[in-house]
């Protein structure tokens, strides 16, 4: 809003004063939200770091276990055993609110299974296959957890960025422009008053 577009009237001055007050309180609230989100973000960041390192460890373990199972039992055995399991892990997606940011909450079920729930017979299989299956179930659980935390982190980052832009826009553009407009209207109103006084004096004279 350029100063030139402002109508130098008293009602406009009142309106701008209201706007300045609103912008200032908005600015204060957004600053508080930004700080709060940053605090939340750092908390989740440390969690995400732990989950990521657990995920890496689980992946390494799963690769190692499937490597041993493939070597000792053979890939044919592992592949055939995998045919016996048809059910897939179930994932339930809910959402929760962190300071106005909607983040996902992922609940998983049927990931971890006991050896008698995996569909294959116990007598015809080995502990190599059991442990490979265990390691992959663990990996899937870690992936689900990492997905929840990393998506939350991403959403928080997006919102922090957005809030920061709004705070900056209010602080460096909207409020200064409104204040400039207010000063302009005041000056213009004073000027108009002086002109009026001068005009009246001339008429009297």
């Amino acid at each position, binding site marked *: 809003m350029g100063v030139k577009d402002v109508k130098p009237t008293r009602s406009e001055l009142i309106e701008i004063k209201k706007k300045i007050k609103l912008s200032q309180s908005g600015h204060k609230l957004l600053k508080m939200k930004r700080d709060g989100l940053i605090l939340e973000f750092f908390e989740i960041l440390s969690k995400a770091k732990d989950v990521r390192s657990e995920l890496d460890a689980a992946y390494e373990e799963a690769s190692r276990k499937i490597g*041993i199972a*493939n*070597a000792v039992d053979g890939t044919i055995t592992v592949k055939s055993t995998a045919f*016996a399991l048809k059910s897939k892990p179930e994932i339930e997606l809910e959402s929760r609110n962190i300071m106005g940011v909607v983040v996902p909450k992922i609940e998983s079920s049927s990931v971890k299974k*006991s050896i*008698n729930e995996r569909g*294959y*017979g116990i007598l015809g299989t080995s502990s*190599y296959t059991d442990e490979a299956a265990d390691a992959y179930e663990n990996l899937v659980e870690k992936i689900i957890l990492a997905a929840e935390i990393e998506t939350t982190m991403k959403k928080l980052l997006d919102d922090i960025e957005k809030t920061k832009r709004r705070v900056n826009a209010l602080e460096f553009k909207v409020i200064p422009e409104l204040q400039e407009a207010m000063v302009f209207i005041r000056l213009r109103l004073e000027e108009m008053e002086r002109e009026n006084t001068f005009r009246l004096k001339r008429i009297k004279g």
Partner: protein
Amino acid sequence: MQLLQKFKRGNSKKSLSKGHANYAYTIARVRAMKSKLLPKETYPRLMNMSIDEITRFIEESEYKEDIDQLARQYEGVDLIEHALNRNLAETFTKLLYISEGDVNFLIGEKLKKYDIWNIKTILRGKYCNASTEEILDAIVAGGRLNYSSLSELAAKATYEDVISELANTEYYPILENYDGTNLSEIENKLDKMYYTGLFDAVGGSKSKDRKLFEEFTRMGIDLKNLITLFRLKKSGITDPEAMDLMIDGGLRCNLKETGKLLPLSFADFVSELESNPYWDVISDIVKPDMTSLVDVETRLKNHRLKSAASFSHVYPNSIVPIMDYMLSKQNEISNLRIIIRGKAANLEDDVIKEQLVI
């Protein structure tokens, strides 16, 4: 069904008659085949080679023909593994063809493991709607059911068709109870049938060679029960119904004693094991807080194979040298696969060496 009977190997009434057994001929052929097995010095050499070098070594060995046959279908480590499996199936098929009577019957009983494995694979494939090619990829036609008949079974549209095709086989009484949901139960019954069948086949004979083979088979049952117990305990299963998984006919552990271990927790189970006849084999690696059973299973498997090697030279004109050859061949295939797959998966040399039986 007629088709299946047409494709079944070496199980004609003549060959199954127990009166006429060609031990001398079969053993002479087996000795010639055994001389072609890789010497034990080969494995440390293979351990020092890269995957490409091992591949080349295998390509220049007895497995050349199998690799040539499969080279268009597979590549790399997969090619080697499929070639090894093909060679194993061909070798065991040859044993069924050259043997007659009692010896053919015993070899057939031992090789039922492959028939049961293939039937399970086909049922699993049908269960998860795998394609015929995917199912055939996981088949090792090393038993009496040959590749053509297994391909016919794998191509059936539903598991009901597969089971009805097997209606006149000994597996049918178990398979007819399959309702599409109880696959693990059916698999366990089939596997149990293999062990009890083998025990019945070798048991009851008074000849010393058969007694030796019987002892070996019964030791296999002991060790199978032990590792099954380990796996059940590790999973926290104490259900008395799990007793159905225990196989009767063990050599040094009876079913009653084994049953007493079933309701125990893993820690109690481990402390009770100290009185088990096989405790010495695993005592240094079994701990109440152990996380992996891989070492225990490897140790028990190796113990069984080493005990087989200890009596392989006695009773030269009996079933013993034939079974010794079958185990040695299986072991060679297993060792080669462990080395090449282990290297491909970047497993440490120590881990690979622990799994080898040399």
